[in-house]
């Protein structure tokens, strides 16, 4: 809302109250955007978000069709329902954008993120880290006498939870890929 408290939509004394009843509700949505993998396309998408003041919680991109030169951009964003609709319409306007899917509303979807954790420690902390990693099905991809690098795939929440557990055990660094997502079913 602007500092002037100007609300979107018409007033409540309108015969046809067009105010969005969810106008102030902030929702998180995961969007899959299929684009031509041409130079500058990511800049266009990111520039749209920064230029119009939209939020990006996470963004991943890679070419998914080498022959057709298509990339898939997965964006996790948040905003009021009206803003989410705007974001999709604005994305759809970008010339090299072919499809925009809102995985949050188009039915169930799976969301996965990959993360690497560097945990340094000795003694009990080290053993505890390894035990927790097993529970979380994290793989050890590098180890020295003082450190591990764990690799884990999961929902962002699972990765957050694992990071919280590792913190007191000597967590040094995290690298996260951001969310990749697909709708469930055929």
């Amino acid at each position: 809302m602007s500092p002037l408290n100007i609300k979107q939509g018409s007033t409540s004394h309108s015969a046809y109250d067009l105010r969005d009843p969810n106008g102030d509700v902030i929702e998180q949505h995961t969007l899959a955007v299929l684009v031509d993998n041409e130079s500058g396309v990511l800049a266009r998408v990111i520039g749209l978000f920064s230029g119009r003041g939209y939020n990006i919680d996470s963004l991943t991109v890679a070419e998914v069709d080498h022959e057709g030169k298509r990339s898939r951009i997965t964006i996790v964003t948040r905003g009021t329902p009206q803003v989410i609709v705007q974001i999709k319409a604005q994305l759809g306007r970008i010339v090299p954008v072919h499809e925009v899917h809102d995985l949050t509303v188009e039915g169930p979807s799976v969301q996965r993120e990959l993360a690497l954790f560097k945990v340094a420690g000795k003694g009990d902390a080290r053993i505890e880290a390894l035990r927790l990693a097993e529970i979380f099905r994290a793989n050890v991809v590098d180890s020295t006498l003082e450190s591990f690098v764990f690799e884990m795939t999961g929902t962002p929440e699972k990765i957050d939870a694992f990071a919280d557990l590792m913190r007191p055990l000597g967590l040094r660094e995290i690298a996260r890929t951001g969310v990749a997502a697909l709708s469930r079913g055929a």
Partner: protein
Amino acid sequence: MAQVMTGAEMVVQAMKDQGVEVVFGYPGGAVLPIYDAIFQQNDIRHVMVRHEQGAVHMAEGYARSTGKPGVVLVTSGPGATNAVTGLTDALMDSIPLVVFTGQVPTFMIGTDGFQEADTVGITRPCTKHNWLVKDTEKLAETIHQAFHVATHGRPGPVLIDIPKDVQFATGAYMAPQKAKVSHYQPKLKGNIDAITQMVEMMETAERPVFYTGGGVINSGPAASQLLREFVEATGFPITSTLMGLGSYPASGDKWLGMLGMHGTYEANLCMHGCDLMLNIGARFDDRITGRIADFSPNSRKVHVDIDASSLNKVIRVDVPILGDVGHVLEDALRLWKARGRKVNKPALAKWWKQIAEWRAVNCLDYKSSDTVIKPQYALQRLEALTKGMDRYITTEVGQHQMWAAQFLGFEDPNRWMTSGGLGTMGYGLPASIGVQIAHPDALVINVAGEASWLMNMQEMGTAMQFRAPAKQFILNNERLGMVRQWQQLLHGERYSQSWSESLPDFVKLAEAFGCKGIKCSDPKDLDDAIMEMIRYDGPVIFDCLVEKHENCFPMIPSGKPHNEMLLGEADTAGAIGAKGAVLV
């Protein structure tokens, strides 16, 4: 067999194949090969401007007055950055342009080479799309795609950045028919269920209003024709945004005048009080809506737009219709006729009675004077003396622009060129030249403010060189009038920097450029002076000295609803609160 040619030759060949007749441009190191190719042919005319911003506004005037895309050619670095204001202007007002920029050779990109700028980076947010072409083999196809994108869907400016080595290298030319444009095909037909819903609403509406915008004009002359037929057949009142003037004739009896911040009393009160709003190709701009929360509180709203992102962007509507105005109007009119041409006659009669009362307020009235030229009077005389002529009007930005919209009547689309969305001072003079180049025998007049006009006055040289007899009708109030008005109403009459100081002698300036200068300060001389301007065979700079402190009314202050309009000086005391002052 595809023809093999240099990249520079491809640019010229592709322009020819796209039907380009004239290019507005300015040479420089990075486009010399293209200029060489232009030199060696006679099909495409090149209009050599004095500043790249001028080239883009000329192309806008050309495009807006013909319905064809405007074409611009400029060099790298400063040539490209000078074009940025024009690109943004064209994007905001949906004007189709194809802009070619030179670039340093591919092997120098990224080295901060001489006159290198990240042109596609700089212009990404101010073009509909842009391309950096690094391979001559792809150049022709890219140019054809660029013309397609600029002119399809919601029109807009596109830019093609061409490194110098790509211009020199040779490759196979691709004809327009072969270029791949299949992916970008915006939907033209509207959803028929939604159109039916709109027609049903029209059949029962008690207080309907057509609210039309630039989309009607962009859709083409047929859309204006359909709109006229629809308005006449239904008997609904119609208003338009600044950008849509001319799609319905100002002489029509259903015409309410322009709406919005400086729109008429009757248009704005119709918008406020209607029960059915038919938005045809407009975009609920903040100059139109005023305070969103109080915008047309009792109406159901239909919105026809070719751009999905315009629908439900600022105002939530009951029936959004995604499609081209012409196509949707055609379907709607056909449906409405097939269903028996129904309207709610008794209710409409009452609505028109109400409108007649609003009209009787005579909101454009002003205090006339025998001693000084009132700007409104000057425009009334200009209107009367040019009536029926083959006339095109451009404007600069400020009070004069709003008065021109209020006091000049437009009978046809594509006759009115003004910078609406961006409000670019300096637009009108080059735009008038672009219009004149497209319509050499027409009467083209730029209604200007003295401050705006100075921003691109170098283009008088272009007007002279290319014999574009565009008339510069300057309403000279020796003030940044619109700024002064806001300072008077919003900032306690503290007139900070809103004087036009040290103005040139416009008559001498005209002489210096080699054209005609006319000065007029007495209302009694005005008619003769205007006739002298019209009759002169060549460009004219008309210095019309007008009342310095006239305010433009009606005015809906920022942040106010339509029904809190200021009609004249008497209404202004304390009219704008601190909250409104924050808005622009």
